[in-house]
């Protein structure tokens, strides 16, 4: 297992895990087949178990599994409470039926007999969400967020750094909370109304101190150094980025409303190209260099091929009206 996780770390670009996660969530969102969705969930869990490392961010599988099962259960419970179907023939569960008058001649019907088809639809709904959660879990567990940060374009570096500091904040806060709680125990206090002031405030102070220390350390080591751009360059960058953003919005609107897909696709492609151009242009402002930047390799190509093939397969099947 250890060897596999090291292989994944060395050979697979973190971006590929995210691409795979994204395609799995899209497939799960589109699917209407219980077995297909279940196998996607199995795939995600299997990938995590095989490729995960021992790092702190890789230990969160139980948490994600819990979250996913909560989603499935709530879906089913809600259907049982609100979607009783008294006239169904394939009754799975027969519960007493209540009618709650809501006034104005309206009434809310609760419980009643539940049909197999309602139950399986609810389960499918829940499982779809669960599959999406686990797909994100898979990407998050298998790719170190900080390594992904290394691969972001230089123009987005500041934003990405802010995100990575924020990601670090949560475990730090938990650590501080535990320490302060232990300290509070030393003073003989267990619980009480002063919990806010006596635990949360010192813990927040501590976390804030540490974040400031991190910021100071980053600054002292050169974070935030930039080249100066000419005024003309700056204005070009601003105009192109504004134009592309507007283009994206119009393209998205057209995609929903227009009858032919040709125009929106053209607008969207142009705007995307504009955005990429802007990112390249602003990256010039940064003088950062990268050491051992991870490159896309054969393993990544394989992952992308799998993603593309599964999409093609899905398109094919859905055209033939086969439930997948």
């Amino acid at each position: 297992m250890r060897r596999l996780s090291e292989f994944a770390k060395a050979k697979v670009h973190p971006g590929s895990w995210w691409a795979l996660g994204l395609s799995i969530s899209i497939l799960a969102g589109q699917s209407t087949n219980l077995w297909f969705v279940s196998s996607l969930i199995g795939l995600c869990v299997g990938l995590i178990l095989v490729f995960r490392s021992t790092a702190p961010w890789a230990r969160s599988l139980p948490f994600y599994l819990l979250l996913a099962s909560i989603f499935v259960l709530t879906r089913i419970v809600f259907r049982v409470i609100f979607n009783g179907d008294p006239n169904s023939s394939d009754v799975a569960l027969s519960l007493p039926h209540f009618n709650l008058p809501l006034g104005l001649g309206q009434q809310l019907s609760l419980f009643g007999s539940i049909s197999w088809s309602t139950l399986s639809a609810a389960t499918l709904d829940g499982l779809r969400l669960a599959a999406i959660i686990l797909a994100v879990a898979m990407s998050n567990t298998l790719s170190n967020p900080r390594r992904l940060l290394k691969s972001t374009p230089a123009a987005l570096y500041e934003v990405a750094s802010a995100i990575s500091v924020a990601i670090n904040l949560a475990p730090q806060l938990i650590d501080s909370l535990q320490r302060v709680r232990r300290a509070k125990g030393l003073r003989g206090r267990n619980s009480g109304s002063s919990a806010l002031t006596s635990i949360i405030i010192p813990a927040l102070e501590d976390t804030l101190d540490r974040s400031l220390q991190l910021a100071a350390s980053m600054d002292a080591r050169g974070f935030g150094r930039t080249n100066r751009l000419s005024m003309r360059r700056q204005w070009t960058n601003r105009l192109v980025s504004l134009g592309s953003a507007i283009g994206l919005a119009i393209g998205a609107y057209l995609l929903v409303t227009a009858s032919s897909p040709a125009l929106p696709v053209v607008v969207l492609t142009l705007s995307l190209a504009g955005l990429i151009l802007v990112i390249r242009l602003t990256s010039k402002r940064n003088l950062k260099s990268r050491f051992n930047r991870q490159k896309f390799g054969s393993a990544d190509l394989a992952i992308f091929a799998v993603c593309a093939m599964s999409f093609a397969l899905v398109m094919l099947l859905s055209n033939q009206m086969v439930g997948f």
Partner: protein
Amino acid sequence: MLKLSNLQFDFGNRDPLFSRVNLEFQAGEFALVCGPTGSGKSTFLRCLNGLSPHFTGGNLAGRIEIDSTDVTGWQPHQLADLVGFVNQQPEGAFVTDTVLEELVYGMEQLGVAETEMKSRLEKLAANLHLTELLDRELTELSGGQQQRVAIAAALSAGQRILVLDEPTSALDPKAAADIIALLHRLATEEGITVLLAEHRLERALPSVDSMVIVHGDGSVTKQLPTEAIREFRLVPPVVELSKRLGLTPPCLTAQDERLKTAVVPAFHASSIEQPKDFVGQAALQLDSISVRYGDSLAVDDVTLSVERGEVLALMGENGSGKTSLLWAIQGSGTRSGGTLTTPWGDTAPMTSEERLCVATLVPQKASDLLFLPTVSAELQDSDRFAKAPETTTASLFQRFAGRVDPSLHPRDLSAGQQLALVLAIQLAKGAGILLLDEPTRGLDYTAKRALAGIITELRDQGKAVIVATHDIEFAAQIATDVVVLESGRVKFAGTPAQVFSVNGLLASEVSQALQVDGLFSMEQLS
């Protein structure tokens, strides 16, 4: 190399922290920066890389020149390739996950080309003995290794000036000595100008070229160590010892030959003794105590006993199980096996309030225990909680720390005052056993002496005190008994004379200096 002219710093309307500072540092100079706690040492150091005033606030006036370039008012990132900075706690300042990433981070920020990075990295890693550690995660390194990585990271972009703010305060004596030796080598062999702030002067004094004293009254002076030490009131034990023996100029290191030939007056057999009234009155008995976290055994089969009026020094390297043992004795920490007896019963099944009447612990970061906005609020809250008569805690605090403005925020107190406040609060319920975890961290000599006074007073009242510490001189001053732990086991248990003497496991400075049998602490001379 580095020139400060007419430098002044103040926080708004208060008196300047320092003013009219004119100093010059040469390439390859190793300077020790010292001063009492709260004198503005840290701010002075942070001015050199722009963190003050840009991160700390305040106003800087005057002129800072590096290699004849005026860098006054530059931001830290503008100074990043000129000045490397290392903090007290390396783990808080690490930006990345692995040693390699940490070392290249600075170079990446400055846009060093990849081939250049590779060659610099190899040289740096070889020079600082980090080659085998390059792929390791930063969190799994020892404190000394972490600090070495921090130093390498601060120099990776080719900085010629290295500023360090108490880098050894969290390290055990051996790791600290290694770091000082490394800095000495960087200065002499690589020609790097090193400015080091350090509380325990005895660690650095033998190897530094000059001593910068931040006096706290606004003046900052630089002298040769031999001259500076003559007037400075915070002096390490060896200097105090040589003054006591009438040697002028005072000796800076325990290796000074004059100390070995000096005439030593008559001395007591021990530096501190258990009061006669309490002999034989057991306060704490541990029988094969063990503490296990998952697979690792932090404390392994420890048996020891402490009587009333005894002060037990718990020594050992980082990770030897001192802290785990203290928490197990207090009762709220993990205890996987063994029995614990006190006159008041076992502490483990007690509620946290009941424990306060039996065994009270002051953790490494004492300020974690303070959560109210003013000192007086803390004192009153403590009386109320302990159901003690009013001003019980306040009078304890005053005895420990002298007069302190009660309207201050606890976080604005000095490290010594914070410790005194926490001690007063923790003792308000009259616990019979006091547990202190690394209490001398961040304290200067004056504050340490005050703490030693408090511990002696508690001993006279018949409290049993256990102090976990790295600080050999401090332990030699206050301990009636010593236990040395190694990998969770008792390696040695005995009297201070056995442990701290010339041939002992942990020879104190005084023992090494005088090499007189049975003399290990200055307290014995009187």
